[in-house]
């Protein structure tokens, strides 16, 4: 029944390449998260404070991002935009798709965070003579960040896991690179097993780093 010989040597030989590809994965995930946080913050504020077309746009973004598969979103940026003559590189496709997705999910988290800060605090800050920008930067946002810190960490992990979909649009991040090597040597199981370990390590490092940062950030 068990007559399969595992060949780990080709995998070990390309391990440096895989780890390098893991760095690409991490890079695209971090970039997408950074853009996602900024855009998500904007979307949340628009949905809380504005009316009209801008609000519809923000709502459409959030609901589309949250209610369709991430793979669909990548395909859309990959093939769908091709219909309009926009041909993006695989890197841009993955970055755009991840950013779109992360921004949508984070916007909902931010909205919850903003709603958790009591209105009275804003009024108190304003009556102390702070401008509304000051109020947001010094009173509201620091508290919101504390509330959404854990969801952001989760989203970061999701971003790393989701970037593996790059494989489906020909992007050579960790999964794409693995598929490339695997299809060259036919050691599919071995390659993907090692890749799974690398993903696991990346996720654990992110969670550990986030916990350390939380200790430093939330001392008070």
């Amino acid at each position, binding site marked *: *029944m*068990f007559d*399969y010989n595992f060949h780990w040597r080709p995998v070990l030989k390309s391990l440096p390449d895989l780890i390098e590809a893991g760095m690409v994965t991490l890079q695209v995930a971090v970039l997408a998260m950074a853009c996602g946080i900024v855009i998500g913050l904007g979307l949340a504020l628009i949905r809380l404070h504005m009316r009209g077309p801008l609000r519809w746009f923000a709502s459409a973004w959030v*609901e*589309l991002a*949250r*209610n*369709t*598969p*991430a*793979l*669909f979103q990548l*395909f*859309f940026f990959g*093939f*769908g935009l*091709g*219909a*309009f003559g926009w041909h993006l590189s695989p890197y841009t496709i993955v970055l755009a798709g991840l950013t779109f997705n992360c921004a949508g999910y984070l916007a909902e988290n931010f909205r919850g965070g903003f709603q958790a800060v009591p209105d009275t605090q804003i009024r108190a800050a304003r009556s102390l003579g702070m401008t509304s920008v000051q109020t947001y930067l010094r009173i509201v946002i620091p508290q919101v960040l504390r509330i959404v810190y854990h969801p952001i960490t989760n989203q970061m*992990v999701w971003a790393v*896991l*989701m970037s*593996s*979909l790059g*494989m*489906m649009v020909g992007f050579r991040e960790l*999964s794409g690179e693995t598929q490339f090597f695997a299809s060259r040597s036919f050691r*599919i*199981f071995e390659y*993907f*097993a090692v*890749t*799974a370990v690398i*993903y*696991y390590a990346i*996720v*654990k490092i992110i969670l550990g780093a986030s916990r350390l940062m939380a200790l430093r950030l939330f001392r008070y």
Partner: protein
Amino acid sequence: MNDTIHFFSGFRPADMVFLAEAAWRTLLVYGVSIFLGTVIGTICGWLLFEGRLLAAATLSPVLDIFRSVPLIIQLVLFYNFAPIVGLNLDPFASGVVILTVYTAALVANVARGGIEAVGRPMRRAARSLGMSYWQDLRYVVLPIGGRAVFPAWVGVALGVMKDSALVSVLGYVELLKASQILITRTQEPFLILSLAGAFYFALSYPISRYAAKLQQRWAQ
């Protein structure tokens, strides 16, 4: 331009049937996995709660792996691992196995949270009224804890629905794979992707709105 030979044929009504069949296959693989995954996940959650240290040392790291490795990698790994141990599974069966385990890993945490949400005094009260352990679980913990984590479970279920699109990597022709096939033939990516996206959206959006409403009502 009119002199070019046309390899591609346009989008025909018959293609709608093809898409509808693919959508049905999506629902099939999703329905089976979410049902089995919820049952197994609930049992795992109960084990995590009752097992204490033993479960924390054995079960939870295993479940953690399924949450920390991209689903697409899990699918490829399992699909290529099964023949090694002599199982010849078709893409549907492999997809169901991995989606079930993945769902179970996510539901386990939700279920444990639900059991923890039922206070100790309430359970002691149930036992002192003469209920057996199982009666206590069935008539006290299930209704109260289940209600507490129902929105979280809906979140997991919707997440898995979107992730079920990844089964296409094994060659299972679900909705996204079918739309990819059609795009290759018709060269109309925008229209077809919009149809596929609309299907997911139409399924996911009402459920997520309904769950949010329920949560609001129960919170009062």
